[in-house]
């Protein structure tokens, strides 16, 4: 799984932060408006304060005992009743007089106690701004907080939904980019119809992919062409060497030329393996190919004092590419010939089922080396002049093209066993 958590704040967070700042500015503006309004209408401020005090005092059994708030003087409160009959009512009124350092506020408020109406008379001197603070607070809650908090909440919710929705095409593009495979350069990202910003970004990405594909193909073609062009001069060199008089110089040069031939062949093989597309309609008999490989390589290995054996365990028909399977076998056998000591047999087998194996009796593959084995140009002994370390890279690529897997096992009795398993057992016709 690639690293998913990017750096920097998420778009959601950025928008949320801006929304919050915006809401705060709006709230501040609201506060200013409320304050200005009341500063212009001190009358209504007094009304509100009286009402507030009435509600505070009403819960006390005897209003006489009510404690005045800070900044209030000459506080007096008492219940009053209309002097006439029971059906009469008193009217709420407020009076405000300027006094030294503040205002004297007095008035009556009706207390709604259900069946038993009561009226409270209040009078106090409010000195300075302090007594008005609860009123102002109430007003702010009512006019600023109550409308703005739900609005901010709704905006935040909208933010979550819309950001998630807007970014969905980006997330899909991200998944697709993660799925890009250098082996299949023809892959492109799905173009979202909207939003346009993502569409243009994806389009630009696809244009970049097209340029990359072109340059990768150029590189691949170059490798193939270069290797191809090298073969004719190599042929000339080898044939010229054959005409030299026998001697140590000639045999050294021939060894060098053979090594170079092998390198060029591997580079070309690898370039071709990279471009291989397996046509799954072709049936390949792993046993027949294995026999052909042993047939071709056995004389050479006999000359080198080595022995190749083949065994067929049956049922090894797959859908695949015969020449590619041949090269899988051949590279594995070449590796075994290079690494296992003389006089030990190399066992090539096909089956049971859609798999092939090559086993040698050499020193085996160190566990530490196994992860590197299929890396291109990797060799466990860099001073070794044998091959370029491309053989396993070729094998891996050819196996991948078949959708197969290759595993390295340590069989009983030592050595190394390379097992290639293919997913596509051919449908047996009868």
């Amino acid at each position: 799984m690639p690293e998913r958590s990017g750096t920097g704040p998420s778009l959601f967070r950025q928008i949320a932060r801006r929304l919050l700042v915006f809401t705060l500015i709006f709230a501040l503006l609201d506060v200013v408006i409320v304050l200005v309004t009341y500063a212009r209408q001190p009358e209504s401020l007094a009304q509100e304060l009286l009402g507030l005090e009435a509600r505070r005092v009403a819960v006390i059994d005897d209003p006489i005992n009510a404690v005045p708030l800070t900044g209030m003087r000459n506080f007096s409160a008492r219940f009053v009743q209309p002097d006439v009959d029971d059906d009469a009512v008193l009217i709420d009124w407020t009076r405000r007089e300027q006094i030294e350092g503040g205002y004297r506020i007095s008035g009556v408020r009706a207390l709604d106690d259900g069946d038993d109406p009561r009226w409270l008379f209040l009078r106090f001197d409010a000195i300075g701004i302090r007594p008005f603070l609860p009123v102002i607070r109430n007003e702010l809650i009512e006019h600023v907080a109550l409308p703005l908090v739900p609005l901010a909440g709704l905006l935040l919710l909208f933010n979550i939904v819309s950001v998630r929705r807007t970014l969905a095409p980006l997330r899909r593009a991200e998944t697709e980019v993660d799925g890009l495979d250098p082996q299949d350069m023809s892959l492109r990202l799905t173009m979202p119809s909207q939003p346009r910003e993502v569409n243009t970004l994806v389009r630009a990405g696809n244009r970049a992919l097209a340029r990359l594909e072109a340059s990768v193909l150029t590189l691949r073609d170059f490798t193939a062409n270069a290797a191809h062009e090298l073969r004719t001069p190599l042929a000339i060199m080898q044939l010229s060497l054959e005409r030299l008089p026998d001697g140590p110089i000639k045999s050294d040069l021939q060894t060098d030329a053979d090594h170079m031939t092998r390198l060029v062949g591997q580079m070309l093989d690898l370039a071709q393996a990279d471009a291989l597309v397996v046509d799954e309609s072709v049936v390949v008999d792993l046993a027949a190919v294995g026999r052909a490989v042993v047939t071709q390589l056995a004389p050479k290995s006999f000359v080198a004092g080595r022995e190749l054996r083949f065994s067929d365990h049956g049922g090894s028909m797959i859908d695949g590419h015969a020449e590619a399977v041949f090269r899988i076998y051949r590279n594995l056998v070449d590796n075994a010939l290079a690494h296992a000591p003389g006089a030990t047999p190399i066992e090539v087998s096909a089956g049971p089922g859609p798999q092939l194996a090559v086993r040698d009796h050499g020193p085996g593959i160190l566990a530490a080396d196994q992860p590197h084995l299929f890396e291109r140009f990797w060799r466990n002994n860099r001073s070794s002049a044998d091959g370029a370390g491309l053989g396993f890279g070729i094998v891996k690529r050819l196996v991948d093209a078949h959708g197969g897997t290759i595993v390295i096992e340590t069989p009983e009795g030592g050595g190394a066993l390379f097992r290639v398993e293919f997913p596509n057992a051919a449908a047996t016709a009868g």
Partner: protein
Amino acid sequence: MSIMRLLLIEDNPRLAGLIRDGLQGQGFAVDWCGTIAGAEAAQKVNSYDLLLLDLGLPDGDGLELLRTVRRRKDATPILVLTARGGLDDRVSGLDAGADDYLVKPFQIPELAARCRALMRRPGAALGTILACGNVMLDTVERSITIGATAIEAPPREVDLLEHLLRRAGHVVAKAALENSLYAMDAEVTPNALEAVVSRLRKRLGSAHADVTVRTVHGVGYALLAPLAAPVATQAENA
């Protein structure tokens, strides 16, 4: 034995010169031309036992010449020499009518062996004397000579030796040997071929033959020349 005449179609003059000299050293007569047009002109004048064809030619693709030759029902064996060693190149070369396919670079003994193998095919002239190391077999007289000594052997062993000599240095499939050795027999025991091989081995050994008959388990048998003069079998990227 008549000299085998080859036509080499290769546009690189230096490589062509080396191949011609090498094959002439192996007893072939070689004509050379560097273009498709030249090859067609040469074929009108002479008849060849074998064409050696390079695929990348200045005036066209060698595969085209191959198809032209086959279209006019000309069965002359054609060996393709090419720098192309692609995954599908061999198959497309053989599909186009080539008899064999050799990827550059190669060595002269290998090329000569492939040429001889092609000319031994049915329809082509058969050599009457087969030899490897100090073993010689006259395919007409059915007589075996080792060094300077003629030895006697039952027909089945002679047949086996002939098959192995024809593909000396190569592995001959067990199935192919069984088919030709026991074509007439109603029943073949599983070990019948092994028994014949074992008797032939003893016979060759006691007569001091310097060739060896090797078993390739699960595949077949190979007759190998003495190691001092190995038959080149380095088929690179075949």
